[in-house]
């Protein structure tokens, strides 16, 4: 469970996020929606640790992780994907996943040079896990392709796969559907649902596409004008006048194909 | 004290003016084309030698040869861009940076091939400086260099603030994405950047020749201080770069001024000053004095 308490972020004179408080409950799929410029990605970046809040606190299972560097949040089980695909373009697909596996022994430079035998077990495990993940995502045929050569949707799948290489508690998906074709999109939805059902992974996703959100999410957080407008189930949200106003009244809603 | 002004400050301002003229181009190219142009010093050398040829063949004084040097070097700059930088435009900027190292070498060897390696001067002999109030001494050519640079700075300011091209250049330097959406003709702006950057570099090169002598490493020796100047002024801020150049030039000269007869910094470490300022800026204030972009 992730909790945000009065989190704000200012860039110079601009307030990108103002006094945001909400929580991402364990074992659920939470959606974060809102018009463009509402501060969704900024909130994500703060949860993932890429940005430091100007004020406020972020908790993971009760522990304050506000000032924990990004690379240390992963060991707490916090993973993310990016809005624009952040694949490792000059590495193969299987390497893209293996790099996210636990390779603590082989990542020590002395072991890497002098004792390559002692991390072979981890390497085998990493490879097997990577292949298993590729099979789960049904892209195992692409294993030796350079990630830079994949289609946009395949890259998104790859990024989702990367979050699955260790034992995630919370997976943050930043517009996983952006730039992905319809059929692949529903496939991704199936996979997310499956991961949530079978493994109990917690998801939090930013999405523009309200249909997609209503299909997947248990709870929805609506951001508008740098703060939380409301939270609740998708049915409740859809009936909320303010949400309708924020989306449609302002004319900023860009629909499903943003 | 008057010694400080005559022998440290005035040479510092002169050197600073020369740095300023080179740094403008570096800053603009960095801001608009997004890469560190390591061949910029050699563009200065090119300008100095074109002017030298004009002085030799037409018999005009060096100052009168400046327009020829400016046009020639600006054209060279545009051609270099066409041949070597444009093909790499869509790649990560690092390829262009490496290419510019190669271009620096190409320019320098071409100059050595065409003009030889002897050091040359525009005018033979020396002139006593003008003396004011019995103590303040300044050489005529230093007055010319400083005055010219001030005029250029003012012209540049008006160009960037009021002309359409100038405004577009600033827009691209501030935010290339926005500029592209706004439908600015990027290629035209890039052409202008090279014309102005190359032209001003040529003037800087001629000034070096006017102040001391012309040799094939002239520009390369000035390159790093000019980078420091561009950083100091803030990348993408041409006038900031000019101010930065002035500061670096003055700092380099005055740092060796002996205080109470003691040299705090040995003159042999003079050139380290610019590097240290540059490092400090990179580490602590990469946006420079005038809030340039950090790429």
């Amino acid at each position, binding site marked *: 469970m992730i909790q945000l308490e009065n989190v704000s972020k200012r860039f110079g004179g601009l307030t990108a996020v103002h006094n945001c408080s909400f929580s991402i409950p364990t074992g659920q799929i939470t959606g974060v929606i809102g018009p463009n410029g509402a501060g969704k990605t900024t909130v994500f970046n703060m949860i993932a640790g890429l940005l430091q809040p100007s004020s406020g606190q972020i908790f993971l299972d009760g522990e304050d992780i506000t000032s924990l560097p990004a690379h240390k949040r992963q060991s707490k089980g916090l993973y993310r994907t990016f809005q624009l695909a952040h694949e490792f373009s000059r590495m193969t697909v299987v390497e893209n996943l293996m790099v996210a596996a636990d390779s603590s022994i082989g990542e020590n430079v002395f072991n890497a040079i002098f004792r390559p035998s002692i991390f072979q077990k981890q390497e085998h495990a990493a490879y097997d896990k990577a292949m298993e993940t590729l099979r789960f995502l049904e892209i195992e045929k692409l294993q030796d392709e350079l990630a830079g050569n994949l289609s946009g949707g395949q890259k998104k799948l790859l990024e989702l796969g990367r979050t699955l290489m260790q034992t995630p508690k919370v997976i943050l998906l930043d517009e996983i559907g952006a730039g992905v074709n319809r059929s692949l999109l529903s496939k991704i939805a199936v996979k997310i649902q499956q991961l949530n059902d079978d493994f109990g992974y917690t998801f939090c996703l930013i999405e523009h596409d309200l249909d997609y959100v209503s299909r997947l999410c248990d709870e929805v957080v609506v951001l508008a004008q740098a703060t939380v407008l409301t939270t609740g189930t998708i049915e409740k949200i859809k009936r909320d006048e303010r949400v309708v106003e924020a989306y449609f009244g302002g004319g900023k809603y860009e629909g499903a194909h943003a | 004290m008057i010694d400080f002004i005559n022998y440290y400050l005035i*040479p510092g301002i002169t050197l600073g003016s020369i740095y300023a003229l080179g740094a403008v181009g570096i800053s603009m190219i960095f801001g608009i084309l997004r890469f560190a142009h390591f061949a910029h010093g050699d563009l200065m050398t090119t300008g100095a030698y074109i002017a030298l040829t004009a002085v030799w063949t037409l018999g005009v004084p060096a100052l009168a040869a400046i327009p020829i040097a400016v046009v020639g070097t600006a054209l060279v700059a545009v051609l270099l861009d066409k041949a070597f930088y444009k093909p790499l435009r869509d790649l990560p900027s690092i390829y262009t940076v490496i290419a510019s190292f190669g271009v620096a070498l190409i320019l320098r060897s071409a100059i050595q091939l065409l003009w030889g390696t002897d050091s040359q001067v525009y005018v033979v002999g020396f002139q006593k400086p003008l003396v004011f109030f019995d103590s303040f001494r300044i050489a005529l050519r230093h007055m010319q260099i400083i005055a010219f640079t001030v005029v250029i700075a003012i012209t540049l300011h008006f160009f960037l603030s009021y002309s359409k091209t100038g405004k577009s250049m600033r827009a691209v330097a501030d935010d290339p994405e926005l500029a592209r959406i706004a439908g600015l003709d990027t290629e035209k702006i890039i052409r202008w950047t090279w014309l102005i950057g190359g032209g001003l570099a040529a003037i800087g090169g001629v000034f070096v020749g006017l102040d001391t002598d012309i040799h094939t490493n002239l520009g390369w020796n000035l390159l790093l201080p000019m980078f420091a100047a561009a950083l100091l002024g803030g990348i993408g801020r041409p006038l900031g770069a000019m101010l930065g150049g002035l500061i670096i030039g003055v700092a380099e000269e005055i740092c060796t001024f002996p205080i109470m007869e003691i040299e705090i910094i040995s003159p042999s470490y003079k050139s380290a000053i610019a590097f240290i300022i540059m490092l400090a800026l990179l580490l602590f204030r990469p946006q420079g004095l005038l809030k340039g972009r950090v790429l």
Partner: protein
Amino acid sequence: MNKTLLMLTTAACITFAGLAGAEDIKVGALMGVTGPLANFIPPILNGAKLAEADVNKGGGLLDGQTMKLVVADSQASAQPSVDAAGKLVNIENVVAIMGALSSGATIAAANAVAIPNGVLQVSPTATAPSMTNLEDNDYVYRIVPSDNYQGKVLARAVLEEGFKKVAITYVNNDYGVGIGNTFKVEYEKLGGVVTKFSKHEDKKNSYRGELATLASSSADALVVIAYAAGSGAKIVKQSLENGFFEKFIGTDGLRDDILIQQIGAEALASSFFTSPSSPSSNAATEAFHARFDETFGGGSDKPFVDQAYDATMLIALAIQQAGSTDRAAVKNALRSVANAPGEIVGPGEWAKARELISAGKDINYEGVSGAHEFDENGDVAGYIGKYIVEGDSYKQTKIFN
């Protein structure tokens, strides 16, 4: 991949090597053709070429074979110098090497190529004191005195001129540091006062700050140990402009036409310069200079022209004396043709030398730039000339030895 490369390279080498005639006897000229000393090279190279021409006109080497000078570019820097020397010795198969110019390039080439391969190397210009103690198995020589020597002579010359108090500025490289330090030590030992002793960085635009400090020390004259094209001319010019100094004393680096071209002869009237030179008794020197200017249209007064000629000549004589192109034999013959006793042979007297050698007589080459008597370290005592500016060129007025 590597194999293909190796084969290509081999093929290229054989092609290049094949271009020279089979009868030619090759001597390497390792010169800093490009790089920081490039502007010194053309006249120096001409000096060597003149020696080559003299040998070939006077009957050639050994049994009338043609001497062929093979030029290689040391770039005045260690890595390329070693590479170029390696090619001279191994591909061009030269008998001996004339060069290199700067001490760094010379020592690197000697250590990495000439000494291990057993090739005689004679440098016309390397002046670094550290050359003296090179462990060279007697393969490395130079025909200019070490910087220690010029520094010492300079000190004497300055005192003779009546300057009891001087300020010194020297460029921070092996040349400036070498002469600067020995000059200071010797000058003070002889009773002179050094009012200020400072080094400067090459290639800066303004030296006014340093010069103001130097001027404030109220010295009679300024000793400038620097290359004219690097910092020397600027220092003289800025001193004159600001009235810091009017009298300058320079070494061979400053004694460059560039200085006269940039400053004008008049302003240099009260200055003098020293430079490795030739013995005054050698009448052949002037004839040589005239011949040089005739052949190449001028340049005989440039630094190290004489030395380049002599170094090449000495190598040719050693080959002739050895009677073969065997490298070790050539090395062993060098001292006997260079050092006394023996019948004296001068520049341009190749035919005479040939005859004497074939008659089994001992010869002693007295060159344009000196008698060249090598000591056990392969150093020469040398002659230092004193020069003043007259007209638009330098004129030698005195010889020290």
